[in-house]
C-alpha cells in the first residue's frame, strides 16, 4: 500500500496537535455562554476558519466529488448558487444580524420569543432529528475514504472512525466553542493545504483538457448545460437557492458562528469572506470527481459485443456479469474495468428503453462515483505528500464532527430538554447537560451509521435531511420577523407539513423525487404557516417558566 510510515507520522502528529490545542482551552470555560458562543469574542479570520472547517469534512469532498463524477461540469452551478447566496447574506445580514443583535445562542431560542415555548421545543425536535440523521451517515462514507486511501482493512475502519469521533468528542465536550475556534484554525490550515495538493496533482497528472475530454466523450451529451441535464433543472436550482439561504441563516453550526461574533458587523464579514471559500468547497471537489472520471476512463479498455450478439443479448449478459462481479471489483478499486461496462449497459438500456436495466446501471454508476475520487487520490498522490493530504482530510473530518456535535447538542439540550424540565438549571447544570448530550449524540451517530442504508446519492440524502427542518425554520423566522400576523398555530403547521415532505423521500418505496421533496417541503411549510396564521392570528404563547438558555 502507498500509505507509508512517514504518512502515518504526519497524520498522527496533526491529530495530536489538534487534541493538545483543544485541551488547552478547557480551563477558560466557566459559563454556558463561554461554552456555546465563546463569550462572543470571535474575530473575522478565526470565524471564517471555524465556519469553513466545520462545513468541510471528508464527507463534503466525497459527495461533491460524486456529484461532479455523475453530473460533470453542470454540478458547478451549485457552487455559483452557493457563492451568490452566501455573499448576499454576508452583505445584507439577512436574518443573521437580527438574531445576533437579540443575543440568542440557538436558532429556536428566537422562536420561543416570537411564537412561544412549545414552538421552540417542536423546532428543536425537528432540528435535532434532521441534524442527527444528517450527521448519522458521515462515518460510514468517510470510512470508505480512509479504507481506500490508507489501506486500513475494513474490519478495523469502524474502530478508526470511533477513535476520530472520540477525539472530536473529547475536546468539544471539554472546551466547547472556544476549543472549536482554536482547533478549527489549525484544522483549516491543514485542510486548505490538503485541498490544494490534491488539486495540483489533478491538474498536473490529468489536466484541464483531460477533464473536459472525459465529460465530452463519456457523458453522452450531458455534463455541460445544467439547465438541460436531468436533475439540474430550474426546479433544482430554485430549491438550491432556498436551501442555501436557509443553510447560511438557520443551520445551527453556521448560525452559531454569527452568534459567537464580536458584533453583528463581524458576523457579516465572516459570511462574506466565507462565500469565496464556499465556491471552492463545491467546485474543487466536484472537479476532483470529474478528474476521477478522466483518470479511470483513460485506463479503461473499450467494451464490445461478442460476435453475432444482439444488443438485447449483450445487455442481458452485461447485466448478469455485473451482478456477479461488481462488488468485488469495486472493493478492489478496479474502476477502469467497471466503468466502461456500466457505461455500455446504460447506453444499451436507454436504447432498448429497458428501465430496470437502466436503473441498475445508474445505481452502479452512483456507487462507482462515491469511491472514484478516493481511489484516484490513492493512485495520484506520492508517499509523504499523502500524509499531508490525510492530515488535511482528518482535520476536515474531526472539525466537522466537533462543530456538529456542539451545534446539535446545543439544540437538544437548550431547546428540547431544558424547556421540558420547566425549571432554571444552574450554569454547571447547563454545562453538564450539554456535555451529556454530546456524548449521547456521538453514541447515536456510531449506531446509526452502522444500520442505515442511504437511498440514492449521498448528496441528496444530506440535503433532504437538512430540509427536514431548514425550510420550516427559515420561513418561521422570516415571517416571524417581517409579518405581524404570523402565529403559533401557523408555526406548528409550518414545521409539521415542511418535515412531512422530506420524511416521505427518506421512506423507501414512496417514489418521491429529490427535487419534488425539496420544493414540496418549502411549499407545504409556507402554506402551513400562512393558513395557520390566518386561521388563528393569536398572540405569542406566554413562556411557561424561566428561559432555558
Amino acid at each position, binding site marked *: 500500500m502507498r500509505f507509508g510510515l512517514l504518512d502515518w507520522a504526519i497524520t498522527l502528529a496533526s491529530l495530536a496537535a489538534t487534541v493538545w490545542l483543544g485541551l488547552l*482551552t478547557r480551563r477558560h470555560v466557566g459559563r454556558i455562554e463561554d461554552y456555546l458562543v465563546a463569550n462572543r469574542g470571535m474575530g473575522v479570520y478565526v470565524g471564517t476558519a471555524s465556519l469553513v472547517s466545520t462545513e468541510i469534512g471528508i464527507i463534503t469532498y466525497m459527495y461533491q466529488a460524486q456529484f461532479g463524477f455523475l453530473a460533470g*461540469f453542470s454540478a458547478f452551478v451549485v457552487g455559483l448558487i452557493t457563492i451568490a447566496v452566501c455573499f448576499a447574506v454576508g452583505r445584507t445580514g439577512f436574518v443573521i444580524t437580527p438574531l445576533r443583535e437579540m443575543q440568542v445562542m440557538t436558532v429556536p431560542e428566537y422562536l420561543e420569543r416570537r411564537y412561544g415555548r412549545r414552538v421552540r421545543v417542536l423546532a428543536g425536535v425537528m432540528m435535532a432529528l434532521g441534524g442527527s440523521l444528517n450527521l448519522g451517515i458521515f462515518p460510514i462514507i468517510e470510512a470508505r475514504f480512509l479504507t481506500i486511501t490508507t489501506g486500513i482493512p475494513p474490519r478495523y475502519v469502524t474502530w478508526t472512525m470511533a477513535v476520530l469521533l472520540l477525539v472530536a468528542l473529547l475536546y468539544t465536550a471539554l472546551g466547547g466553542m472556544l476549543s472549536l475556534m482554536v482547533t478549527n484554525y489549525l484544522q483549516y*490550515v491543514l485542510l486548505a493545504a490538503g485541498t*490544494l495538493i490534491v488539486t495540483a496533482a489533478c491538474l498536473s497528472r490529468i489536466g484541464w483538457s483531460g477533464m*473536459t475530454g472525459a465529460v465530452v466523450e463519456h457523458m453522452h451529451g450531458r455534463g455541460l*448545460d445544467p439547465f438541460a441535464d436531468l436533475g439540474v433543472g430550474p426546479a433544482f436550482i430554485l430549491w438550491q437557492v432556498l436551501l442555501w439561504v436557509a443553510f447560511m441563516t438557520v443551520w445551527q453550526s453556521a448560525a452559531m458562528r454569527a452568534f459567537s461574533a464580536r458584533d453583528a458587523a463581524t458576523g457579516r464579514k465572516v459570511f462574506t469572506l466565507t462565500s469565496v471559500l464556499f465556491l471552492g468547497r463545491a*467546485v474543487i471537489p466536484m472537479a476532483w470527481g470529474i478528474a476521477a472520471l478522466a483518470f479511470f476512463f483513460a485506463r479503461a479498455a473499450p467494451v464490445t459485443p461478442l460476435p453475432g450478439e444482439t444488443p438485447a443479448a449483450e445487455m442481458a449478459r452485461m447485466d448478469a456479469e455485473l451482478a456477479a462481479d461488481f462488488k468485488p471489483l469495486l472493493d478492489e478499486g478496479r474502476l477502469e474495468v467497471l466503468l466502461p461496462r456500466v457505461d455500455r449497459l446504460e447506453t444499451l438500456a436507454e436504447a432498448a428503453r429497458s428501465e430496470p436495466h437502466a436503473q441498475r446501471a445508474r445505481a452502479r454508476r452512483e456507487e462507482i462515483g462515491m469511491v472514484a475520487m478516493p481511489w484516484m487520490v490513492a493512485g495520484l498522490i506520492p508517499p509523504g505528500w499523502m500524509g499531508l493530504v490525510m492530515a488535511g482530510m482528518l482535520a476536515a473530518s474531526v472539525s466537522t464532527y466537533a462543530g456538529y456535535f456542539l451545534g446539535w447538542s446545543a439544540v437538544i439540550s437548550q431547546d428540547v430538554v431544558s424547556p421540558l424540565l420547566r425549571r432554571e438549571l444552574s450554569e454547571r447544570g447547563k454545562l453538564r447537560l450539554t456535555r451529556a448530550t454530546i456524548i449521547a449524540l456521538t453514541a447515536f451517530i456510531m449506531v446509526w451509521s452502522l444500520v442505515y442504508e442511504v437511498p440514492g446519492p449521498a448528496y441528496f440524502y444530506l440535503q433532504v435531511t437538512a430540509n427536514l427542518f431548514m425550510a420550516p425554520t427559515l420561513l418561521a423566522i422570516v415571517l416571524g420577523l417581517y409579518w405581524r400576523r404570523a402565529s403559533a398555530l401557523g408555526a406548528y403547521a409550518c414545521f409539521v407539513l415542511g418535515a412531512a415532505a422530506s420524511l416521505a423521500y427518506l421512506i423507501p418505496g414512496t417514489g418521491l423525487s429529490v427535487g419534488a421533496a425539496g420544493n414540496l417541503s418549502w411549499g407545504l411549510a409556507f402554506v402551513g404557516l400562512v393558513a395557520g396564521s390566518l386561521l388563528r392570528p393569536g398572540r405569542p404563547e406566554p413562556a411557561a417558566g424561566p428561559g432555558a438558555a
Partner: protein
Amino acid sequence: MSWLTLWAIVFYVSVGSFALVSALVAVLGFREVRELFRSFAEKPRERP
C-alpha cells in the same frame, strides 16, 4: 461564451480565490487566536 469556457473560468477562479483567502486566513487568523487566548486569560475565572 461556451459552457466549457464558463466552467474553466469558474474552476480557476475557485482555486485561485480559495488559495488566496486561505493564505489570508492563515496569516491574520493566527493573530486573532492569540488575542482570543489573551482575552480569556485576562478574564477573571467564573466558577459556576
